């Protein structure tokens, strides 16, 4: 007999292999401090401290203890950590003890022992499946009110709203074979594969390998595990990931895994999300022991037999001295022997008429009742006795622990993720995969319905050879088909976590929910954090019996990822805070920041929206000030973000010609032309200027928003549509910093900075281009204007962008050069009537934006959109066309998106919208609120007429006169000046 030892007041089995009794660890549960050992889980440590009540159930607030020793735990759900680090709904069976660990029970008030909501349990016979939906339907409007109360009363833990200070990270891993599960089958498979030279990753959710085998008391088994582990550790082509749950299998050999990482230093992640890419996978995922459904089968002290074996042999915790084991199979008899060896009183209640290992237990002093079942567990907040039913007789049996085993269910979740659907096998009396092998996966060990230790090892080795071990499948535990005890008198839980009891399934069936999927959703069976791992098969059996059909006919529900819960923080990894989204910065970004610019997100770019004079200056005042300055003096704006594409090759001219609606092959070197680009369907795609830099080189500009789309469009045309053209396109957006100088004084400023270049109106006229140097640095100067003023866009290599900006400001100070932001840039272009993305939204044609003549005059044989742009409907005079709007009331400004109606009032009678507002601003030059809009019939029908721009969301109506969209300098005299 092995003598238990007393350590810190707890009786521990000194042969325990999973804990280091030399290292004590202090932890707190519900505010009380306890001590455990290194290697303990929270569950084992609490059991060692004789704490059996750990939680309250979801709906009825029934007292709950530990029922498993693994990730399938449905009962011992606790809140881990405190403050910002709090993590609700964690399983006590999976929490490794660490010094100072803090855990609390959840879903109870005011305390775990005295939970007021446990009153629900008294009314539980009324709170059946569908109760809330049936009861709180009237009045329907009140459901939103009821829902809050119901959710508050029933639920799991509460997540914190504070920022998670823990680090979580991600890792991409690649291998030839991923072995999931490091039990006997997984270990043997990994070794055999590694011996073939394969690059192997073996992952297991537990911190130590061995699977269920490590819970055995045999030294031989333990030695075998250690030997295999050390062999694997010695191999360079094997990576061992412990405390790592492969939670999902996805297409293309991609697997998701979550590692509870070791805290090696202050920067180690707590959770690490692995994305594992494997050519093949071996699923050695083992099997889960099933509970048996009987009265009060959720009382603390009732646990699965394997769990008790784990606590006794691995963690060394002996949570009781008087133990009843209830079974329908042989797998519990080793546990009975272990317990007898430790001096416990053992009574086995075996539902079968005969059990071969019973004799040995009787010989060792244990009691075995055959043809008997546990009908009910009894006790207040923890088990004290069981009511045994045998051949028509009932009797009570005292106990402090009840271990149960209803047989084993292979863990086939990952295979199910990949599309395999397990079915019930009458011979094995459990679910099983029809095919153990697919093109890239193979299932071995207990996951394949193989129970014997040696057979599991053999199946792993066979998998390495590509062979399945179907022949090794058997009901070697002699499991009998017992899923629930009909003689029970108390609430019999099928799904512990969702408080789904036997009558709930019967009720669902009676109410017509015959499909297993419907029963699942009606009763919530198989949902929540445990996903019904311990409940599903029993529920299928109960439903099959209720329906009077076979288990195969009932079918199975679909397992979906994740296998076990994955914290959102793990998915996010380091993509939080500063790293939430990458930021694109222009070369002048830091100058803008240093000088108080208010930055605006434009896609991933940061752009200066405006430069407030002081803290009190608001956006409207600032942009009006800035644009007034540009119109009267000179301003400069950072336009680096505009897309810039270099098009090179001997066919570059022809290529650009085909891409744009208007001609470009005739463009002279050193000249710029505005171009409109259509899509194949004839609508406008983008616009911008393109410059002929050299005979075989053009530089195209695009809007900031369309920079990537246009590049992709050009690449597709180049590579797929016209591969015969000798052209290459390069994005040079990042190569050049762009600064636009605009205003009457812009030329004077430019003259101050260029090295020996003539930038006079004659030498560099509107739409001219000059390649020169500024302070010796290569500079490209484009005489183009977005604002409508005399303007130049200067490009220098981005490395020099900020220096040039500062130099311009210095040299331009004599001419009152000031920076302006995107807000005033946009307002200036609205005054000028230039279109941008707001107008070119994919629904507008060249005719709509006033470039119909460009299309009429186009005689080119090939250009994108050439056929569809000439569709009759595109010339329909009723189409919405670009116009300008001026508010008749100077105090009223427009809202973008306003709908334009002919009537001042919106009535209940639906009317057609005449159009909509796309861009609006205040025009300081005109001292009016103006807007660009599309209106049916355009200027030819509406010029100088009154319309109404309605913005119903704000109950805003602006009376407006329809005018030309060119609010200033319609002849373009300024920009040519």
């Amino acid at each position, binding site marked *: 007999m092995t003598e238990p030892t007393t350590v810190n007041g707890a009786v521990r089995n000194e042969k325990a292999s999973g804990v280091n009794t030399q290292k004590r660890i202090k932890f707190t549960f519900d505010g009380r401090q306890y001590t455990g050992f290194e290697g303990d889980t929270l569950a084992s440590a609490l059991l060692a401290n004789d704490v059996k009540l750990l939680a309250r159930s979801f709906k009825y607030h029934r007292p709950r203890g530990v029922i498993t020793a693994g990730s399938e735990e449905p009962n011992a759900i606790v809140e881990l950590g405190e403050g910002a680090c709090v993590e609700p709904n964690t399983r006590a069976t999976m929490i490794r003890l660490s010094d100072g660990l803090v855990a609390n029970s959840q879903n109870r008030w005011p305390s775990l022992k005295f939970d007021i909501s446990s009153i629900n349990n008294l009314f539980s016979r009324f709170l059946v499946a569908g109760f809330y939906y049936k009861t709180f339907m009237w009045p329907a409007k009140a459901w939103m009110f009821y829902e809050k109360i119901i959710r508050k009363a029933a639920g799991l833990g509460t997540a914190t709203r504070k920022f998670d200070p823990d680090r979580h990270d991600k890792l991409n891993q690649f291998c030839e074979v991923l072995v999931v599960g490091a039990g006997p089958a997984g270990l043997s498979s990994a070794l055999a594969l590694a011996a073939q030279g394969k690059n192997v990753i073996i992952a297991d959710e537990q911190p130590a390998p061995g699977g269920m085998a490590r819970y055995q008391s045999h030294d031989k088994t333990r030695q075998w595990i250690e030997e295999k582990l050390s062999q694997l550790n010695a191999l360079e082509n094997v990576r061992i990931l412990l405390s790592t749950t492969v939670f999902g299998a996805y297409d293309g050999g991609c697997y998701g895994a979550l590692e509870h990482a070791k805290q090696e230093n202050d920067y*180690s992640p707590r959770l690490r999300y692995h994305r594992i890419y494997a050519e093949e996978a071996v699923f050695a995922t083992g099997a889960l022991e099933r509970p048996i459904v009987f009265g009060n089968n959720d009382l603390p002290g009732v646990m699965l037999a394997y769990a008790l074996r784990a606590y006794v042999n691995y963690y060394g915790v002996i949570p009781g001295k008087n133990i009843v084991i209830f079974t329908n199979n042989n797998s519990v008899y080793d546990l009975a022997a272990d317990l007898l060896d430790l001096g416990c009183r053992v009574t086995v209640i075996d539902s079968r008429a005969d059990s071969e290992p019973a004799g040995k237990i009787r010989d060792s002093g244990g009691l075995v009742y055959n043809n008997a079942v546990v009908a009910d567990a009894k006790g207040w907040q923890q088990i004290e006795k069981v009511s045994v039913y045998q051949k028509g007789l009932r009797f009570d049996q005292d106990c402090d622990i009840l271990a149960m085993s209803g047989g084993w269910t292979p863990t086939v979740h990952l295979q199910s993720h990949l599309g395999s659907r397990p079915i019930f096998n009458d011979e094995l009396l459990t679910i099983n995969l029809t095919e153990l092998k697919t093109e890239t996966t193979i299932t071995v060990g207990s996951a394949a319905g193989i129970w014997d230790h040696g057979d599991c090892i053999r199946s792993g080795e066979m998998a390495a050879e590509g062979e399945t071990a179907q022949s090794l499948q058997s009901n070697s535990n002699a499991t009998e088909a017992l899923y629930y005890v009909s003689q029970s008198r108390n609430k019999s839980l099928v799904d512990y976590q969702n408080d789904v009891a036997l009558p709930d399934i019967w009720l669902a069936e009676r109410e017509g929910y015959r499909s297993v999927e419907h029963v699942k959703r009606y009763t919530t069976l198989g949902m929540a954090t445990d996903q019904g791992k311990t409940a599903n098969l029993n529920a299928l059996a109960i439903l099959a019996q209720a329906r009077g059909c076979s288990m195969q006919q009932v079918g199975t529900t679909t397992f979906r990822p994740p296998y076990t819960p994955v914290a959102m923080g793990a998915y996010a990894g380091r993509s939080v805070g500063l790293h939430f989204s990458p930021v694109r910065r222009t070369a002048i970004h830091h100058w803008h920041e240093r000088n108080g610019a208010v930055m605006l997100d434009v896609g991933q770019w940061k752009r200066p929206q405006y430069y407030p004079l002081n803290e009190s200056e608001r956006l409207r005042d600032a942009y009006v000030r800035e644009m007034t300055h540009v119109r009267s003096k000179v301003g400069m704006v950072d336009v680096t973000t505009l897309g810039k594409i270099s098009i090179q090759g001997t066919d570059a001219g022809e290529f650009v010609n085909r891409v744009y609606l208007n001609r470009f092959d005739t463009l002279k070197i050193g000249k710029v032309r505005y171009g409109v680009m259509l899509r194949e369907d004839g609508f406008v795609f983008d616009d911008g200027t393109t410059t002929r830099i050299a005979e075989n080189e053009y530089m195209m500009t695009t809007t900031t928003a369309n920079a990537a789309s246009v590049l992709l469009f050009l690449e597709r045309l180049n590579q797929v549509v016209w591969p015969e053209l000798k052209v290459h396109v390069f994005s040079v957006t990042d190569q050049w910093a762009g600064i636009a100088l605009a205003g009457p004084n812009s030329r004077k400023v430019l003259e101050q900075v260029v090295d020996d270049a003539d930038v006079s109106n004659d030498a560099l006229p509107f739409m001219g281009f000059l390649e020169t140097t500024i302070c*010796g640095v290569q500079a490209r100067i484009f005489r183009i204007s977005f604002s409508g003023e005399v303007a130049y866009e200067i490009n220098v290599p981005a490395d020099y962008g900020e220096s040039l900006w500062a130099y311009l400001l210095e040299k331009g100070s004599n001419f009152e050069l000031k920076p302006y932001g995107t807000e005033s840039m946009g307002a200036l272009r609205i005054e000028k009537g230039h279109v941008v993305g707001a107008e070119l939204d994919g629904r507008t044609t060249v005719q709509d934006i006033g470039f119909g003549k460009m299309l009429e005059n186009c005689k080119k044989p090939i250009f994108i959109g050439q056929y569809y742009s000439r569709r009759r409907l595109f010339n329909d005079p009723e189409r919405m066309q670009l116009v300008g709007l001026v508010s008749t009331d100077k105090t009223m400004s427009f809202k973008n998106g306003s709908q334009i109606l002919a009537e001042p009032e919106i009535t209940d009678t639906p009317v057609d919208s005449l159009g909509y507002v796309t861009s609006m601003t205040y025009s300081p030059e005109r001292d009016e609120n103006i807007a660009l809009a599309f209106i049916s019939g355009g200027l030819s029908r509406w010029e100088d007429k009154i319309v109404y721009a309605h913005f119903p969301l704000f109950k805003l109506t602006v009376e407006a006169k329809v005018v030309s969209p060119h609010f200033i300098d319609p002849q373009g005299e300024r920009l040519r000046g």
Partner: protein
Amino acid sequence: MVKLNARSALESGYVLGTHGARLDNPIRLWERRGLIMHNLAVWDTEAVNGLLQPQLGIRLPETGQSTVNSSACVLWTGPGRYLIAAGEPGTAEILSAVSDEHCALQDMSSARTVVRIQGDACRSMMAKGLTVNIAKQVFTTGQVILSSFDHHYPVIIHNVSSDIDTFDIYITRSFALSFWHWLCDSSLEFGYQVIDAETNG
């Protein structure tokens, strides 16, 4: 004449010294500044090789590879596409001599920031954000990967040496500072040391 200073995209985030976990072999990071970089797109590989070899003593690399000598480094960046990085001034003139009959050439010296990383933990660090297999036996000296870090940062990674793991990461300039922050953060658990930037040209 007033001189305009070239400024690195990493300037505001480049903090010299050792950071993160205090381990024996931290990752070493530094910027390679002043490299002259050109994108080269080729229609006739042999013709371009015929021009490049006498001028730079270098040939265009095979798919996924690089060719390196003391004057330049040529990285394969796609079918018929290459990135030429050179530290020597004058390389641009040599490259410009390459006829545009056979190829197109584009100066990208300011378009990319180049970061060199070195150390045993480099691969583990990069594996955090790279969905490409960079195991030692797969991603070997001289090989080139075009991918993105963390699904966002477009990069070219050149395995400079597997003896002491050394990689050059070419990142689009506008993303460079954001990527640098990511790189430093990802290196924290291994410890990292930022050393003086290398100056070329």
